[in-house]
């Protein structure tokens, strides 16, 4: 029997009881009809369609008077229209945002979303996810200081970058690497064996960023990387260790560890190439798990990147797009209750069933590649190795990084120039 069954029964009973009491109270009075049918409007990024299907079904079971009106939009589309819809006359009750200045900062500045600190305390979110993990959803009240202050959103899904590998090919070269040096040595061995060491398609510019993020994490402490992404006082992009990372990435480029014409290969095509057996490793986000599982079956493996000689793991990682409660939500408490269901430990099993990785530990018995991916995420959280996504650092950083990784991989610039360009973008926003 699942552990959540009992509380759910209790909750259902509570709701029924409350319903009876309120309807009794309302019968002689024209009090506000809280028990009448309630519709929660949800505006979400389309990747969460299956997640929402499961969650809303469970929620409606608990609260039969609640129904949902869900609007889904694909990622690019969503980020274009969401702020406009939230500031319109008819905003939803719950909506996705996006970490960083361009969406979340904007929503906070516009007073469009509610602070969630009280709910976080009520539901124990901070303890459950770890103190620093939720900083990516924090902004000061004026929406200008990212990573500090009030909690405005939350999501329980881990979107971590890790290392997928072709089990057959790796077995021919050696075992799983315990340190970054061992990983580096495996790349050289793969190259010598005539394999493509790292499958990558960088036509979009951001895929290489995930690879660079891993190298960066291998040379620099995760906390230091988080500080520059958040623009903390005293932080900076370029340090000696950052230079070492850029030099290592440049070395990988020069050694031919990436496929030929990497800037002309689309991300989806690179995943298809990896499935087709081109590449020993693929450093990519864990959202590829279902695709790889389907395409490669038992031949696909995953590990969190060992980022130092001590064997700790880390790298580019974050939680998924935050769920926000809008300021015009009719019943914020109810909306918070639904969000709590989405991030609850009980729901972690359901997340796994739709191929998503829960950041909260789950006792479900998942199998195969998803189990390795989930274990990898847990290891990164345990080692406090989350380094966030570098493109959150400034409003223009996404454009800077995407074009600069292409120039770096294309040999137009060297690692030093790459870092200088990133630094000047960062200085313009934080100077």
């Amino acid at each position, binding site marked *: 029997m699942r552990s959540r069954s009992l509380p759910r029964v209790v909750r259902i009973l509570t709701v029924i009881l409350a319903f009876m009491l309120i309807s009794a109270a309302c019968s002689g009075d024209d009090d506000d009809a809280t028990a009448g049918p309630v519709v929660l409007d949800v505006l979400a990024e389309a990747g969460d369609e299956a997640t929402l299907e499961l969650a809303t079904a469970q929620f409606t079971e608990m609260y039969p008077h609640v129904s949902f009106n869900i609007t889904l939009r694909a990622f690019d589309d969503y*980020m*274009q229209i969401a*702020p*406009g819809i939230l*500031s319109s006359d008819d905003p939803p009750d719950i909506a996705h945002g996006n970490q960083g200045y*361009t969406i979340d900062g*904007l*929503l906070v*500045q*516009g007073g*469009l979303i509610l602070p969630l600190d009280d709910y976080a305390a009520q539901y124990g979110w901070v303890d459950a996810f770890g103190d620093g993990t939720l900083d990516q959803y924090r902004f000061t009240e004026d929406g200008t200081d990212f990573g500090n202050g009030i909690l405005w959103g939350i999501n329980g899904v881990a979107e971590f970058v890790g290392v997928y590998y072709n089990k057959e090919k790796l077995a021919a070269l050696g075992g799983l690497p315990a340190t970054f040096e061992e990983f580096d040595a495996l790349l050289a061995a793969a190259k010598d064996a005539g394999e493509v060491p790292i499958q990558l398609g*960088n*036509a*979009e*510019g951001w895929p290489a960023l995930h690879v660079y993020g891993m190298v960066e994490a291998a040379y620099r402490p995760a906390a230091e990387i988080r500080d520059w992404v958040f623009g903390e006082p005293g932080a900076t992009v370029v340090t000696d260790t950052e230079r070492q990372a850029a030099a290592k990435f440049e070395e990988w480029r020069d050694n031919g560890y990436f*496929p*030929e*014409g*990497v*800037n*002309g*290969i*689309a991300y989806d*095509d690179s995943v298809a190439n990896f499935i087709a057996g081109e590449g020993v490793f693929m450093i990519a986000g864990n959202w590829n798990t279902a695709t790889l599982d389907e395409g490669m079956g038992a031949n696909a493996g995953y590990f969190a990147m060992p980022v130092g000689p001590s064997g700790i793991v880390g790298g580019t990682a974050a939680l998924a797009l935050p769920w926000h409660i809008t300021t015009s939500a009719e019943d914020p408490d109810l909306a918070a209750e639904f969000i709590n269901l989405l991030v609850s430990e009980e729901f972690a099993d359901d997340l796994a069933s739709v191929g998503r990785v829960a950041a909260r530990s789950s006792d479900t018995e998942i199998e195969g590649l998803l189990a390795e991916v989930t274990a990898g995420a847990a290891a990164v959280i345990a080692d406090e190795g989350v380094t966030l996504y570098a493109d959150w650092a400034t*409003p*223009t950083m*996404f*454009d800077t990084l*995407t*074009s*600069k990784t*292409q*120039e770096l991989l*294309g040999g*137009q610039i060297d690692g030093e120039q790459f870092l200088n360009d990133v630094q000047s973008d960062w200085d313009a926003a934080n100077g």
Partner: protein
Amino acid sequence: MQRDGLAPTRAPLRPPQLSRPSRPARPVRRGPSGRVQPVAYLYLLPAFAFFAVFAVAPLVHAFKLSFYEWNGITDQVWVGLDNYVTVFTDPHVRAALWNSVILIVFYAVLPICVALVIVGLMARVRIRGRTAFRAVLFVPTILPLTVVAVAWRWVYAPDGPLNFGLDLIGLDFVSRAWLGDFTFALPSMGMVGTWVTFGLVFVLFAAGVQKIPSQLYESARIDGANMVREFFAVTLPALRGEITVALILTVTAALRNFDLVFVMTRGGPGTNTEVPSMFIYRSVFQIRSIGLGAAIGVILMLELLAVNLAVLWYRRRGDLSA
């Protein structure tokens, strides 16, 4: 050039006057006094209202926004010419404006030159199945540009048909990831533009050639003009109107190019295929600096206007001197 001596005195070939349509009568209704009756303007009102609401008002609004800093949510802040200063000092925006000029070569100059050559040939050589030929060439023009972009992205892919074909004929040293190549990405994209606009230009010219009286060609031939001379003396001057229309349409397509870039490269690799409309998109939807996007939009509009006015001015001057 060796010429026969049969026609010793030869009047210089002049542009065919017949080809120019006579000016249509002015469709303005005049009252007994000879002045335009005020009621005439009433008939213009519906069209003007439509134009005002959907073209003029957004234009004025965008112009106004270009002087503000605005993220779309919080209050607009007046910043004067700051956005324009940003546009002209940002090397990326300048590179994008320059790229759009290069794209004019691919979208306008190249298709017009090729179409003129083919049309010139057609004046001499009978081509069988000309209608079918023309229909096929016109297809790219009516395809949605996103479809075109997706198709060509596949053609240019590292394991796409273009590289496959090159490898097949032993040119494997030429094959590359075309859209990811810092040298070839922009020309590759430009060639797609040529492919798209060529059909339109060709159909325009082919129609134009058909209305040239065959006597003109006959007299040119009697005068001993060879194919090249015939082309410059008869065909080209007769097509001046069509060339103007083709230039305006294709230059506009080149400067406001967004679909192809967005789907094929998003401006990459690096900033090599960056165009002004991508910056508008980025400024407004990614960086959320709507004033900056509006400023680039205004500059792009002025650039378009300037190029088109230059084309029209050149055409008018040509008319007067002819």
